[in-house]
Each structure stands twice: as structure tokens, then as C-alpha cells.
């Protein structure tokens, strides 16, 4: 086994009673020192993966390896993994110092070392001087940091973060995104971050796993996933996009909205039904005569950095456009786009 691999899931299934599996035959490798994000809607199995790694639950089928050792039945207190919980799970009867020291005290580490390590961990999360505070005296963001300090003080090989930012307000959340990313770089350990927020995932990760219904739909760098979604679900989940049905006429030629366009995709069979994705920011506003597509503006929203235009073409397809230019409702406009902006995907069954 490649010694950069730290966690390996081998055909892992988790099922409760006779319900549908929450995790369905999933295999993947996690490498040392990277920032991973498990992204998906609620109930997609992302938290289940985290709980399997932490050891709170055991897989129904398949094997989990940690440093090459099978750990299916190793209890959570024997794993070199620590978790930052969604509700922080700080101990209300202990102060900040004792919360952070909890793991070290259990390991019976000498007092002087505990003192030093706890101080260091609190410095890491910018909470120096808060040692004696009670948990209920701390704000949401501060509790968050205490929870992180409590986890990293144990020097885990992998840090698991279960939607840790979801309870914070927008400004604090963005701030913590930077801090977490920075923390991961400084510590150099593997972070596995669970979220349903695609912006968060794109901003922070080295690699994203997009999950749906207990399966991994796609894994890759944020850029891969944003630019080259493999199917309709991923394209829809990651950012806003225009997804319409088209036909692949030939290599580099695709037809949609009753017109043929040059594109950069190939390798499909002739006349294959495909899904087309064009991101709203790749569509440019021009006059009706100059545009590749002719659409009518249905609604305009001012979003601060740009206008969000909702338009319809003559065939009833909806086109979402992000533009710095404004258009009037009811106006006929043209849309221009480059061949690279068209992304062709295989049709996923059913949807």
C-alpha cells in the first residue's frame, strides 16, 4: 500500500436494519496532509463516513484501513483520530483549560506537559488568556475554537470536522474558513471536513468528494468538480448552472435549443442524448443580433457584484445569466459564450 495513504475504505456499506443503506459500497483512499471535504445534501452519507472513521459506528460490510491496519472493530478511544463536532460537544462542567486538557488527562500525561500543550493549542486557535473561562461565557465562534483546540492538542493523524461552521453567522463563517485552511497548513495533518455548503467546500479543500444517496458521485479538486462535473447532480449541487438536454451530433459538435454549436468535448457516440452545462457567469450579454442564443429577459435581480438575469429562449429553456450589465424585463437580448464554456455530460439515468 502506498504509504501516503492514511485511510482506506474498501467496499464499505453501512445499513441500519432493513432500511436502504446509508452508505452503499464506497471505496476511496485518503492521503496524508491534505484537506478533504465530504460534500452533499443531508442524508447523503457524509456524516456516516465521518462516524465510521471516528469509530462511533462499525461498517455493515467492507473494511476500513488506517495506516494499512484493519480497524473495523477498533473502538474510538483507541484511534489516532479526533473530531470537532457540529454542536461542539464541549463539557459544560469544565472550563476552557480542562476541556482542552481532557484527552491529555486521560492519557495520564505529566502535569507540566499538559499545561504546556494546552497553552500551545489555545495559542494556535487565538484563545490565549481564556483558560479559566467557563464554556457558557464563550461566544459561538470561541466555542468553535475551543473544540478545535481540544481536538488538535491530542496530535491526531487525522482531524474530522462535522459541519463545524454551520452554527456560525456568515461573516464569522468566512473568517473561520480561512483560519481552518491556515491551521491545516501549519499542522500538516489530514483534515476531513463535512459540509453541505458548496462554497465552503470549494474555498477550502484540496480534494472534494461529492456524495449523494450513499454513493460518491465525483471526487476531485475544487476546480475539476466545478469545471467538469460528471453528471447533472454534481453540476446542480456545485454552484448555480444552466443544465439542459442536448444531442451530441459528432465530436466537437453539440446541438441544443435547436442550434448546433462547436464545443471541446468528444468521445460520445453519434446522436447521443447528453446533458449540457453552461455556468451563468460564462454567458455574456450582447444584442439580439450578435448573440449565439436569443432569449427574452424574465426577471432581473441585483446581487451586489452582478445582476442575476433569468431568461427564456424560444424553446422554453431557462437561462440564468450573471452579468455586470443590466437588461430590462421583457427585452430581447443575445447571449454569447465561448466553446470552452459548454460542458457536455453523460445523461444520468432517471433524472
Amino acid at each position, binding site marked *: 500500500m502506498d504509504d501516503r495513504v492514511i485511510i482506506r475504505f474498501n467496499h464499505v456499506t453501512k445499513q441500519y436494519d432493513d432500511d436502504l443503506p446509508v452508505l452503499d459500497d464506497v471505496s476511496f483512499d485518503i492521503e496524508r496532509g491534505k484537506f478533504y471535504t465530504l460534500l452533499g445534501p443531508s442524508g447523503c452519507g457524509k456524516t456516516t463516513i465521518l462516524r465510521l472513521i471516528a469509530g462511533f459506528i462499525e461498517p455493515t460490510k467492507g473494511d476500513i484501513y488506517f495506516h494499512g491496519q484493519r480497524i473495523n472493530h477498533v473502538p474510538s478511544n483507541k484511534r489516532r483520530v479526533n473530531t470537532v463536532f457540529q454542536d461542539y*460537544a464541549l463539557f459544560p462542567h469544565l472550563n476552557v483549560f480542562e476541556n482542552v486538557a481532557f484527552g491529555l488527562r486521560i492519557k495520564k500525561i505529566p502535569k507540566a506537559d499538559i499545561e504546556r500543550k494546552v497553552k500551545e493549542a489555545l495559542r494556535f486557535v487565538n484563545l490565549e488568556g481564556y483558560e479559566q473561562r467557563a464554556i*457558557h461565557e464563550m461566544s459561538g465562534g470561541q466555542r468553535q475554537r475551543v473544540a478545535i483546540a481540544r481536538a488538535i492538542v*491530542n496530535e491526531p493523524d487525522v482531524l474530522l470536522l462535522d459541519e463545524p461552521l454551520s452554527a456560525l453567522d456568515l461573516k464569522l463563517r468566512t473568517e473561520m474558513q480561512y483560519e481552518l485552511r491556515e491551521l491545516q497548513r501549519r499542522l500538516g495533518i489530514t483534515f476531513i471536513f463535512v459540509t453541505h455548503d458548496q462554497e465552503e467546500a470549494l474555498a477550502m479543500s484540496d480534494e472534494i468528494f461529492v456524495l449523494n444517496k450513499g454513493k460518491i458521485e465525483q471526487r476531485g479538486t475544487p476546480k475539476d468538480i466545478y469545471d467538469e462535473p460528471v453528471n447533472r447532480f454534481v453540476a446542480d449541487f456545485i454552484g448555480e448552472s444552466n443544465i439542459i438536454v442536448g444531442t451530441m451530433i459528432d465530436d466537437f459538435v453539440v446541438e441544443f435549443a435547436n442550434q448546433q454549436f462547436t464545443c471541446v468535448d468528444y468521445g460520445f457516440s453519434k446522436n447521443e442524448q447528453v446533458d449540457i452545462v453552461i455556468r451563468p457567469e460564462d454567458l455574456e450579454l450582447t444584442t439580439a443580433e450578435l448573440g449565439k442564443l436569443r432569449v427574452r429577459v424574465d426577471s432581473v435581480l441585483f446581487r451586489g457584484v452582478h445582476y442575476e438575469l433569468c431568461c427564456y429562449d424560444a424553446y422554453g429553456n431557462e437561462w440564468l445569466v450573471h452579468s455586470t450589465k443590466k437588461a430590462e424585463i421583457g427585452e430581447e437580448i443575445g447571449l454569447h459564450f465561448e466553446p470552452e464554456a459548454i460542458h457536455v455530460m453523460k445523461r444520468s439515468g432517471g433524472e
Partner: protein
Amino acid sequence: MKVARLYLAFVFFVLYMPIFYLIYYSFNSGGTMHHFESFTLDWYKDVFDDTRLLVIVLHTVIVALLSSSLATIIGVLGAIAIYYAKHRWKQTLLTLNNILIVSPDVIIGASFLILFTIAGIQLGFTSVLLSHIAFSIPIVVLMVLPKLQEMSPTLIDAARDLGANEWNVLTKVVLPYVTPGIFAGFFMALTYSLDDFAVTFFVTGNGFSTLSVEIYSRARQGISLSVNALSTLLFLFTLLLVVVYYIITQRTSAKGGQK
């Protein structure tokens, strides 16, 4: 509003009237409860001179402390067992627990009497202690279980995650978390044991008595105002316990109030 307040005052007046009546005459030198002659502490002196009574007080306190301590230990373990029980058992166990609290003391007392007779346990200190433990356990469970249920289950996950084994989880997380409930349960059990009459009356034998039973038999024998004095002392002691209980719950709720 005014009527409501008057009504409330009236209700409390009716409730506390007999007690204050009793306390008032415990200072009467006349020896009866219908004509106040002059102030005296003689009856209190009588109480403190009565060695038999002091022994009974001692017994009562010992039984109360022992039974509430043991009931607290058993009750806490029981509450934890119910907390971890499978969902469909949980409700059943809780209902069985609550039935014991609401069922009449006379029935419990009588059934204990039958049980101890069959089991061949001599009526006296042991039988009183055992029955007090038995009726205190459900009270402790009732005070501790809500605290357990209010605890987020991720706290236990977090403790395990940080390396805690089952024992650590219990001693370092669960028990400290439910401590206010444990104290509340202990004090409730203590007051229940101290003033229990019905159950104790059934299971106490010759030569062993608790204060409530003693007061009852003295009150029946005829009027002596030393009974009033004794009752007054008991009332004040109970009041003290309530105050202590109140302070403890106030302090813990102030601590956890801002969560």
C-alpha cells in the same frame, strides 16, 4: 388581580394555620392548646431531657442519611440503566418507576410488612432502612433521569473520541453532568425518609421507632405540649433542608442558565 392575590393568601393561611397554631402553643406554659397562659421554653427543655426521644431522633437521622445515600447510589445507576435501555423498554421502565411514587404509602407499607414477614427479616432497624431505601429509589430516578436526557449524546461521543473508556465516560462526563440532579434526588429522598410515617408505621417493630411514628403515638396517648415542641423542631429542620435544596438548585441553574 387583587382577588387572586387575596385568594392565594387565604389558601396559604389555611395550609400553614395548623402548623403555626401548633408552634404557638409549644410556648404555652398552661399545658393545653386552648388557653395561652405565658411564654415558656419548658416543653423544649422536656424534649431535650428525654433521652429516649433523643435516641429516636438519632435513629431517624441515621435511617434518613443511610437510606437516602444508598437510594441515591442505586437510583443513579438505575437512571443510567433506563437511559441506555432500548426505546420501547424505556417508557415501560419509567412508568413502573412512577407508579411506585404515586401508589399509596399504606399499600407499600403493608406489602413490605408481608414481604419482611415471609422473608423472615426481623422488624426493626433493618426493615425500616430497607423500606426507606426502596421508596426513595424511584424519587432519585425521577430527579436524575431528566438531567441525563437533557445531556447531548455527542458529549459521550466526544469523550470517547478523546480517548475515554466506559469508566472515564461515566466518571468524567456523565456523573459530573447530572450532579445537580443527584443532589436534588438525595435531598428529596432525605426529606421523604425523615418525615415518612405510613410505611415506617407498618415495618417498625418493638424497640425501634422513628420520630414520626413516635409523635403519632404520643399524640394519641394524650396531650402533652412536648409533642408540639418536637413537631416545631422537626418543622424547622425540614424548612432548613428545603432552603439548602433551594440554594443548591439555584446555584446550579445560574451556572448552566446561559447555555
